[in-house]
C-alpha cells in the first residue's frame, strides 16, 4: 500500500522524534506537570516542528486531544479577523479533561505581517488562562519582540546525518525497497538535515525503482527542478534574456512560487554546479543582493529579472 510516507511515518510519540533531544525532554516535562508556557518553535523546514506539536498535544491531552487542539496555518489564514474569529470561537469553549487549557498551534507564524502579529499578541494575552499557543516559524527574527518575549523559544536544529540515515534505513526496510549505501548518502547530502525532504526523495525514487542507486537519486531529484534551472542558465549564457524570462515566468507565474523560494533554489543549484568558483561567488553576491531587494521592494518579478540581466552581464564578460 502506498501512502505519502512523510505522513505514514510521522512519529506519533515524542520519544520517536529524531534529533531534537533537548526540545523533547522539556516538552515531556510539560506533559508530566500538565502545564506549559506559550511556545515558539523556530527552525528550518523538516526538522520536526509540526510533528513535535502534534505528538506533544496527544500526550498532554490523551484521548481528548482533538477537542482541545486546533491547528491553524498562518499563511493560509491571511486576514487577521479570520484568525482572531477562529481563535476566539475555539477559546470560548472550556477545555475538556483535567488539563484546564487548550492549545492553538499556529504554523508558519512568520508569514503574518507585523500588524497581524500585534493583533495576535493581544489575543494571546486575553485568552492566556484558557488557551496556550504554540507558534512555529523558520526564523524567530521575523516574529516581533513582544511575542518572542511571551514565549519560551525552542530552536530546532537540522537533523544530523547519522540519525537521518537511520530513519531512512528503517523506512526502506519496512517498505521493502533496496537502497545502496551511497544512494542513502546522497539523499542525506541533498536533504541537508531536512527529514521531510529526505523521506520525500526516498519515496520519489522508489516510485519507479525497486533498487535505488546513487545515479537514480541524482537523476530523479535533478528532474524535479534542476532541468528548468539548467534551461534558464543556458539562456543566460547565450545572452537570451527573453528565454530566461520565460523559464522564470513558469516558476513565478504558473507555479506561483515566491521569488525568495526561487532564489534559494537557484542559489543551491549554482553552488552545487560545476561552474568556475570565482564566478560562483560573484553570482552568489548578486543573488544575495536580489534576495534583499525582494524583501524591500514591491514587485518581486522585476527584482528577479534585474538579476537575470546582471547574470547575463557577468557571463558575457567571461
Amino acid at each position, binding site marked *: *500500500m*502506498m*501512502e*505519502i510516507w*512523510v*505522513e505514514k511515518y510521522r512519529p506519533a510519540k515524542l520519544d520517536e522524534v529524531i534529533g531534537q533531544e533537548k526540545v523533547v525532554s522539556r516538552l515531556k516535562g510539560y506533559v508530566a506537570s500538565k502545564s506549559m508556557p506559550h511556545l515558539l518553535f523556530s527552525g528550518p*523546514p*523538516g526538522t520536526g516542528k*509540526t510533528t513535535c506539536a*502534534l505528538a506533544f498535544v496527544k500526550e498532554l491531552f490523551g484521548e481528548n486531544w*482533538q477537542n482541545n*487542539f486546533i*491547528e491553524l*496555518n*498562518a*499563511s*493560509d489564514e491571511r486576514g487577521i479577523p479570520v484568525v482572531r474569529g477562529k481563535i476566539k470561537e475555539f477559546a470560548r469553549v472550556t477545555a475538556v479533561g483535567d488539563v484546564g487549557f487548550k492549545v492553538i498551534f499556529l*504554523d*508558519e507564524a512568520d*508569514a503574518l505581517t507585523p500588524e497581524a502579529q500585534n493583533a495576535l499578541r493581544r489575543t494571546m494575552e486575553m485568552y492566556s488562562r484558557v488557551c496556550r499557543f504554540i507558534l512555529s516559524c523558520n526564523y524567530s527574527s521575523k516574529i516581533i519582540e513582544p511575542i518572542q518575549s511571551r514565549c519560551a523559544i525552542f530552536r530546532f536544529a537540522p537533523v544530523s546525518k547519522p540519525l537521518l540515515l537511520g530513519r531512512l534505513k528503517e523506512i526502506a526496510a519496512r517498505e521493502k525497497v533496496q537502497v545502496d549505501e551511497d544512494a542513502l548518502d546522497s539523499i542525506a547530502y541533498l536533504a541537508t538535515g531536512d527529514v*521531510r*525532504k529526505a523521506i*520525500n*526523495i526516498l*519515496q*520519489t525514487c522508489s*516510485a*519507479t525503482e525497486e533498487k535505488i542507486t546513487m545515479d537514480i537519486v541524482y537523476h*530523479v531529484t535533478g*528532474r*524535479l*527542478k534542476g532541468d528548468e534551472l539548467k534551461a534558464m542558465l543556458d539562456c543566460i549564457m547565450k*545572452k537570451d*534574456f*527573453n528565454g530566461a*524570462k520565460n523559464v522564470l*515566468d513558469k516558476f513565478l*507565474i*504558473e*507555479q*506561483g*512560487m*515566491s521569488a525568495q*523560494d526561487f532564489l534559494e533554489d537557484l542559489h543551491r543549484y549554482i553552488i552545487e554546479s560545476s561552474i568556475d568558483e570565482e564566478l560562483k561567488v560573484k553570482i552568489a553576491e548578486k543573488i544575495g543582493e536580489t534576495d534583499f*531587494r525582494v524583501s*524591500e*521592494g*514591491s*514587485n518581486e*518579478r*522585476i*527584482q528577479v*529579472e*534585474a538579476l*537575470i*540581466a*546582471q547574470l*547575463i*552581464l557577468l557571463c*558575457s564578460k567571461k
Partner: protein
Amino acid sequence: MTEMWVEKYRPKFLGEIRGNKQAIEAMRRWAEEWETGKVKKRAVVLSGKPGVGKTTAAHALANEFGWAVIELNASDARNAGAIEDIVLRAAIHSDLSGDEKRKKLLILDEADSLYERVSREGEGPEGAEAGDEKEDYSDRGGASAILRAIAVTSNPIILIVNDEYELTRKGRFKEVCEIIKFRRVDKREIKKLLAGICASEKIRVEESVLQLIAERSDGDVRSAINDLEAVATGRTQVTTEEGVGVRDREEEVYALLGTIFKERNLRKIREIQRNVDEEPEKLTLWIEENIPRAYTHPEDLASGFDALSKADLFFGRVYRRGRYGLWKYAIDLMLGGVAVAKKHEPRFAQFSFPMFLLKMRDTRDTRERIYALCYKLGRYCHSSIAEAKREIYPYFVYIFRHNDSFRRQMVRKLRLTPDDVRFIFDYDERAEIIIKDLYSQKPEKEKEKQKSVEVGRGQQKLLE
C-alpha cells in the same frame, strides 16, 4: 448654455440612476437610519470603477433627503492635519449653514488616493518645505483622522473610492463603515441612456453607433456620454461609426516608452508621463516588458533593469512604511534612470503590451488547480498551502505520475477528481487510460473507499 452633457444629464434623484440598483437601495436604507436616528454605521464607502455613478449617487442621496453637502476632494487637502481639521469641524459643528436641524452630508471623494495626491503637491513650488512635510505623511496621517471623525460625527459621511483595498488596508474602515460596491453598468442600460440623451438633444444617431459607444465604454457611463457628445456635437444626425473615439490609453503609453528609450532628458520624459493616464506602478510593467526589446547590449540591459529595480525599492518603501513622499524618487528612477542607462545605440523596437498581464490571465486555471491540490495536500500533511506547494507538491506529482498503487491510494484519500488527475498528468493522453482504470472498478473497492472517507472526516474535524 454650453454645459457638458455629463453635467447636464447628471441624475438628480436616485431613481434616475442607471444600473447598481442594489447599491442604491443600500444607500437609501442607510440614509433612512440617519433620519430615524438609529444609525448602525456612521459612514459608508462607495467603491467601484470610474464613471459608474458613485459621486452622482452620493449627491442624489443628499438631494432626496434634503441634506446639505460638503464635498472634499482629496486633492483639496494640504496634509493630514488639514484634512482632520476640515473633517472634524464639518462633522461636529452644525453651524456651517446656519440651519441647525439640517443634516450635512460629508462626501470624501477619491478617499483611496488621499495620500498620493497630498504628497505629489510637494513636488510643486512648495517643494522646498518637503523636509517639514515629511512628518505629516507618516502612516498615521489622513486615514486615522478620518476614522476619528467617523467615530464622533453627528452627520452622515460618504467615502468614495476606486480601490476599496487601498483604503481598508490603512485602517479599521471595514469595521466602522458599510461598504457598498458599485459595478460596471450593463451596456444595454448605457445604450438606453444614450438614446434618451439623443432624443432630448434632437439628434438622430444610428443605433449601431450607440451600440458601439456602449460596448467600448466597458461599463463607464461617464465616458460613454463623453464619447457620444464628441461625435454628435454640431450635427443633427450621425449615421456612421466614423469618429467614435477609441478609448485607448495604450497610445499614450507607447509614446512615453518611445521617449524613455530614445531620450535622456528627465524633464521632458516627466512631462510626457504626466499626460499618461496610468498609475506609475502599472507603468513599471510596461517598462519591464520593453527594456529587453530596446536595450540589447548586456551593459545597458543590466543597468536599465538596475534602475527599475531601485525604483521598485522605493515603491516598496512607499507601501511598507507609508512614506508617500518617496513616490517621486521611484518615478525618477523608473523613467530617468532607465533612460540614462543606455550607453549604446538602442534598437528600434516594436514595443509590446506587458506579457505579465496576459500570462496572469492565461495561467489562472493552472494556478487555481495547483492551489486546490495543495490545499488538499496541506490538510492531509499538516501543512499550509504555501508549504505544501514548496515541500510536498513536486514530489507528489512525480510519484503520482509514476506509481500506480500510490495513485490509487491518493485518489481516494485526497478525493481527487478525474480533472485533478488530468491536470497532474499535464493533460497527457496517458491520463485518459489511467482515469478509466482508476474510476472504473467501483464495486470491489467500495468498502475500502468508505473507510478512507471516514479517515478524511476525522482529519477534517481535527483541522477545522
